[in-house]
């Protein structure tokens, strides 16, 4: 029966020791642990959220970069096309210009040649005329060695002039 009656000395020690244990642990023990664990939980949740956000941001950035890359590629193709077009145009222009120039040169050359030819012909003609005059002079000198002949000549020429005057 004594088992069922609380002993006063034991009660005293139990109140004392349990009181001290409860005081110490409820003040410095469990709240610290619970607080740290809950803080850590909050921290992990927050980290997960921010990681998710960072992941989303990264995906967005990736999309954007892909878009930029795509645009760049398009631009690249466009620029290349333009370049080739302008190249062709340049070549065409150059060709046209060159052919025009060549035509002009040929024309000039022909003109020059014609001019040269005319000059040459004129020269020949003058020389032929001079030669014929010289020859005529020599012939005339030969014929007009005598005074009579000279007089005849003068007469005749005068006649001729008169004839032509009349």
């Amino acid at each position, binding site marked *: 029966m004594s*088992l069922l009656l609380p002993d006063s000395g034991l009660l005293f*020690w*139990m109140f004392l020791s349990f009181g001290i244990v*409860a005081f110490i642990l409820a003040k410095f*023990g469990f709240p*610290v*642990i619970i607080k740290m664990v809950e*803080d850590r939980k909050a*921290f992990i949740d927050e980290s997960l959220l921010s990681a998710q956000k960072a992941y989303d941001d990264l995906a967005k950035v990736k999309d954007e970069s892909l878009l930029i890359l795509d645009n760049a590629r398009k631009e690249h193709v466009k620029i290349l096309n333009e370049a080739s077009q302008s190249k062709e145009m340049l070549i065409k222009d150059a060709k046209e210009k060159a052919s025009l120039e060549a035509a002009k040169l040929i024309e000039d050359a022909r003109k020059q040649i014609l001019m040269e030819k005319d000059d040459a012909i004129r020269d020949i003609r003058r020389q032929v005329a001079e030669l014929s005059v010289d020859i005529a002079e020599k012939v005339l000198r030969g014929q007009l060695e005598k005074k009579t002949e000279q007089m005849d000549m003068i007469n005749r020429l005068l006649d001729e002039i008169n004839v032509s005057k009349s």
Partner: protein
Amino acid sequence: MNSLRKILSLIVITLFLSTAFAFGKEEVPAAGKPEKLDVKELILEHLADSYTWHITKIGETDIAIPLPVIVYSKTTGWHVFMSSAFHEKGEYEGLIIAAEGKYKGKIVEKDAKGNEVKPFDISITKVVFSLLFNSTLLIFIILMVARSYKKDTFESKKGFVGFMELFIMNINDDVIKPCIGKDYRKFSPYLLTVFFFIFLNNLIGIIPIFPGGANVTGNIAITFTLAICTFLIVNIFGTKEYWREIFWPDVPVWLKVPLPLMPAIELVGVFTKPFALMIRLFANMLAGHSIILGLTCLVFVTVSLGPAMNASMTVVSVLFTVFINLVEVLVAYIQAYVFVLLSAVFIGLARVEPHHAHKVKE
């Protein structure tokens, strides 16, 4: 597989040794005069508190650890001495340990008329010593765990601290939180303290050698204190609605006036709740200790039935003791768990808010 074999061989060796021990023991009464073993007395003695910590008996000498006796007598004042002082003459400074009567096993003094009077006794008895030891151990363990949280933040813990974290948070989140409700934070340090206090005392109580083995939580003074604490917390933090439900519950009026039937029942309920807590823990731990002691005594009781019977019963005894010890480890946890669960439920019930239905009625 390997560890299983190890355990098996360990059990076999234990059985063999205990059998050999039983045979050896058998020869002693054969040589001397056979003495009758009073199992009931032996068990009760082990369960009860004592002034010395008796460990074993080798031959005729008792091996025991003396514990300090602190007694205040109205007539002779304070007495502080070690309990080993009783061994010499059986009495010291007029104090004796009562052999029988109302104060059997307690320190008493004789008054002028020769009657036994119990002085104010706050001796460090076996249970008190164990209690102080376990309390210190508990404070040490929990503060050690708490300190490792102060050092580095947000690092997940490993080893013992990690285990304790799991344990504490399990009780906190799965028992206290759902039972009390929204303002559980105010009560969880107390309830966690109670849980680990009971659990540690239960566990140490199962260990049969020196710092363990005392029947701490199986002592009614211990459970009484714990129950009183819960009782005080429940009723001090009880809401207005809690008291209204006790004195003016929602039942037909004739149950309340003129004869306050329901209020009386409710009022009794206020006291039966902590009483149930007290008795449940006390009786469970007491019974556990009794069963283990009883099964161990089977070895000595069957000595008179002859060596064959004794040997076979020893095997049975060891097997059952191992089994019951394992059950007791489970019970140590379950009782701490149940005590805290019920305390949390009672606190939760005392924290009721007036529900909607009442407002409509009023």
